[in-house]
């Protein structure tokens, strides 16, 4: 092999001194190409004696392998340098946000409403909806609130200029959905009715003229006030957490009797009034075509906006209708 040592040294030197791919290819061609010394030597093998030919061929092959290795190694190094130069030129600081891509945000009310719906669906309820503009029948009369009733004043109704005066209104609660459901379905009924409701409350930090409620209605055979208290309890624990307790206090609504307010416990041991509930008044059942001697049940309801305001400690409930993106994107 000694006769080729010089060649090998030269080739290794040429590989080492190649600074880029082009130089390397040219150098490789020079030492390994068709016209290279090595190729010429290989062509000369045929003139050797048969017994010498094998040894000489083997030697040539070893030399070729050595030279190829030199170029391969150099190629790896050069390629690495090429990458490194590219990496260096493409260096970016990724520690900042670029804010070119954003997921949108559901409105807080939708988030709360979905959560509430999911809890009640899990408890065997379906979700009922109805129109926001209603007649006096659905908003009041079917609910056992005749036109003279003092309770009508409590609803601070926004009326609409359709029909006779005070005949058509923006619903002041979602109870009309209960009436519509009962008119169209015989029991058993297990529904919740979420939706927008309206009152003549001037918008301020704690009031909005358009807000959201969710109401529940259960009508079946043998439904008791104990079932009402138990359902409220289950819901409260599912929604607020298992440590939160509920209680009922006597109250009055024309459409339920007995009626109650329901409170939930706060961490400091005090109670917070959440909503109203009670056993559906027999007059309401009869008004909707359901026999109150055969069926009985309960209803409950509360405001979603207030729940949201409480949960997220909003200091001004008007944020919910201003729709400032800086607010919407927080949740």
């Amino acid at each position, binding site marked *: 092999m000694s006769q080729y040592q010089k060649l090998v040294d030269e080739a290794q030197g040429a590989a080492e001194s190649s600074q880029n791919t082009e130089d390397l290819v040219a150098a490789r061609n020079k030492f390994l190409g068709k016209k290279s010394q090595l190729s010429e030597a290989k062509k000369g093998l045929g003139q050797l004696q048969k017994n010498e030919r094998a040894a000489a061929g083997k030697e040539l092959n070893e030399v070729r392998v050595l030279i190829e290795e030199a170029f391969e190694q150099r190629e790896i190094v050069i390629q690495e340098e090429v990458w490194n130069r590219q990496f260096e030129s493409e260096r970016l600081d990724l520690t900042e946000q670029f*804010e070119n891509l*954003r*997921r*949108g945000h*559901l409105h807080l009310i939708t988030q709360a409403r979905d959560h509430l*719906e999911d809890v*009640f*669906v899990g*408890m*065997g309820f*379906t*979700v009922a909806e109805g*129109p*926001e*503009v*209603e*007649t006096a029948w659905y908003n009041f009369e079917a609910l056992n609130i005749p036109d*003279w009733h*003092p309770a009508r004043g*409590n609803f601070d109704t*926004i009326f*609409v200029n359709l029909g006779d*005066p005070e005949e*058509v209104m*923006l619903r002041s609660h979602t109870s009309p959905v209960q009436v519509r459901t009962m008119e169209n379905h015989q029991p*058993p009924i*297990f529904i919740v009715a979420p939706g*927008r409701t309206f009152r003549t409350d001037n918008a301020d930090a704690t009031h909005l*003229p*358009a807000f959201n409620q969710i109401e529940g209605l259960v009508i079946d055979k043998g*439904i*008791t*006030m*104990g*079932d009402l*208290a*138990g359902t409220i*309890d*289950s819901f409260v624990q599912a929604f607020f957490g298992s440590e939160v307790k509920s*209680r*009922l*206090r*006597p*109250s*009055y609504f*024309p459409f339920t*009797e*007995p*009626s109650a*307010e329901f409170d939930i416990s706060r961490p400091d041991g005090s109670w917070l*009034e959440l909503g109203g509930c009670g*056993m559906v008044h027999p007059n309401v059942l009869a008004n909707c075509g359901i026999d109150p001697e055969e069926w*009985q049940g309960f209803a409950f309801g509360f405001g979603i906006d207030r729940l949201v305001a409480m949960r997220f400690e909003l200091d001004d409930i008007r944020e919910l*209708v*201003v*729709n*400032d*993106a*800086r607010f*919407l994107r927080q949740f």
Partner: protein
Amino acid sequence: MKVLLSWLKEFAPDIEGDPISLGERLSHLGLAVEEMSMLGEGLSGVVVGRILDLRPHPDAERIQLVDVDLGDGNATQICCGAFNMEVGDLIPVATIGSTLPDGMEISQRKLRGQLSNGMCCSPAELGLGDDHDGIMILPADEKSYSSGVPISEALGIKPDVLWDLEVNANRPDAMSIAGVARDLAASLGIPFSYPNYDFLEGSAKLTDLATVEIIDPTLCGRFAVRAAAGVSIGESPRWIQNRLLSLGMRPINNVVDISNYVMLELGQPNHTYDLAKVPEGHLSIRRALEGETITTLDGEGRSLIVEDGVIANIRGEAIGIAGVMGGLSTEISEETTDVLIEVAWWDPPSISRTVKRLNLMSEASIRFRRGADYGENIERALERIAYLLSDGGAEIASGVVQDTGSLPSRDSVKVRTDKINNLIGVDLAAKDMKSYLDSIGFGVSIKKGDLAVEIPTWRWDTKTETDISEEIARMFGYEKIKRTVPKGTAPGALSQYQKNRRRVREILVGVGCDETMPMPFLAPGDLRSAGLAEEAISLTNPLVQEESLLRTSLLPGQLKVIAHNQSHRVDDLRFFEIGHVFSVSADGGLLPDEREHLSVALVGVHVSEIVDLLYVLGNELELPNLQLASGEVPGMHPGRAAEILIAGKISGYIGEVDPRVLTSYGIDGRVAWLELNLGKVLSGPLGKKSYRNVSKYPSSDVDLAFDVPESVSSATISGYIRKAGGDLLQQVKLFDMYSGDSMEDGHRSLAYRLRFQAPDRTLTDDEVSALRAQCIQMVEKKTDARLRI
């Protein structure tokens, strides 16, 4: 309704317990405690001061300097923001170091350079009533009010508990001290009774002085009067004034104060007339004449209608509106000596309608419309007033004069114990139910295990078995009812529409849109500014003009949201909303046509982005045959708008908002918009997602450029290409749009890339050529478009 512990004890002397647990008990009786205050606390250090001098603060217009003598004869300077007092007045002064009932600590302060050595107090600051308007001025004619005397001693204030209770509409009885005491006594298991109001009647006979006649018995169930002579009008005793103040009423004079006192105490509103101004002492009760007028106590002239009730004099003139407000002509005045006292029972619906029509809510009408006591409480109230007047030196004529109309008839109610137990979810025996009802004055007899219940006259709203179930549940205690959960039979679920709507929200949130929820009201002009028709349903009683119309489109509300955000320099605005819109019923129905719409607004983007977004929705929801039809749409850029067709029906519109509309809403940049009738779109049949094999074979692309007149839409061209390409055409993409010098006027070049692919083989060149030819032929045959060479 506010109640004082000391007053409750006059009816139930055995009330005991700490104020917090008594308050809890009231709440559990359905008389929710809204506020509790400890009276007479925090008054140490508050003394009577005599004003020696008043002078302006040299450097502050809204403050004056008051020198008071606090009993030591020296002038103590106080800075005060009220101006209702004069030199010589006696006022309560909180001295340095004292702490007022609301927790305010009084210390020496300097206000604009002037020392203030204490505070002059209003009644509210002392926890005596709600009066914040000015400093409390003590009557000058009582000996006890000398400077330096502690205010509690001067005013005779004893420590007491005041609860402010929320009383529900079905509890007229609890609009009184006595009624609350009855409930509380029952709950505590202690006796309740009315004190005796004994007084001596004078020699005059009432029948000689007064006559009454109920002309309309449907209006008035009972009308009873007494009379007192020799009344001298003046201040009422301090203890009456203190109680009225505590309960939030302002003392006026002895007769008016006694009238109010008895209303609060017994729940029986009453009215006092100057007898001298009632000719022949005759009162009659009738409905008003249409257009009849009266000047009420507040000095207002009122016009009446036939539904209203009036009290008329013998000349037929209305001198009071029944149950609502007295008339000015018979008002008690300084000169009054003889007083006629009326206690009546009025038909609640009648009073309710008048109160509502005249918007005249008063302490009396609140009680009458809920149904006052129509029983012996009427005589009791008359006696109580007579007693208090007599105590003040008046002479009471003997007897009561009254007339009776239609009183509520309350038959004994049959109450089934099983029904009650099944409703409440308890297992009470008839005798338990009886004892609960007995304790609050119901009369109960047990018949064959069920109850026959007589309803007391102070519970006008209580009529039925269900009403009584509530009383039993209330006295049993809601908190003791065992909690169970109803056994539903069907699983709960969202409807398909509700699931799809949630899917829409998820998709939009996924592409970076924030959900908005503006109020659904519009201002007049909002629709016009948005380029929309101005036919909207209006509200009868809007809170403000800016919120007086119901929206017909989500566009104006969303534009306002965009403008708000831009004005606060919030950018990258991408919004969506799902909400109801309203228009007058097309088929003559009473209720409007109400639809649930979806809108999306992308600010500062090319209109093509909203079209892409619509197709994302369309594909995700498998909306059947989603197509756009170019055309002019109100509110949209005339050259960049289209109607959205789903299953061949117009279901919404899409485009770029008309820049003139954006200008009128003060919006910068462009807004891409779509609005869909979501209710209609998601309620119809949606396509089903089904498996389509993904081809493993190579695909072939063909580019075709057509010369297309403006009148032919791109969707038309691509539609025909799809039709001609059939199943082997995997994709058609518009990749270039060009109009300019090389094109004829009114024409543009549209270039499409077609990708052909078979599921089971590699397409041959011949096959692809044939497909290409078919597509060109179809487009050229069906439209005026021509292949560009």
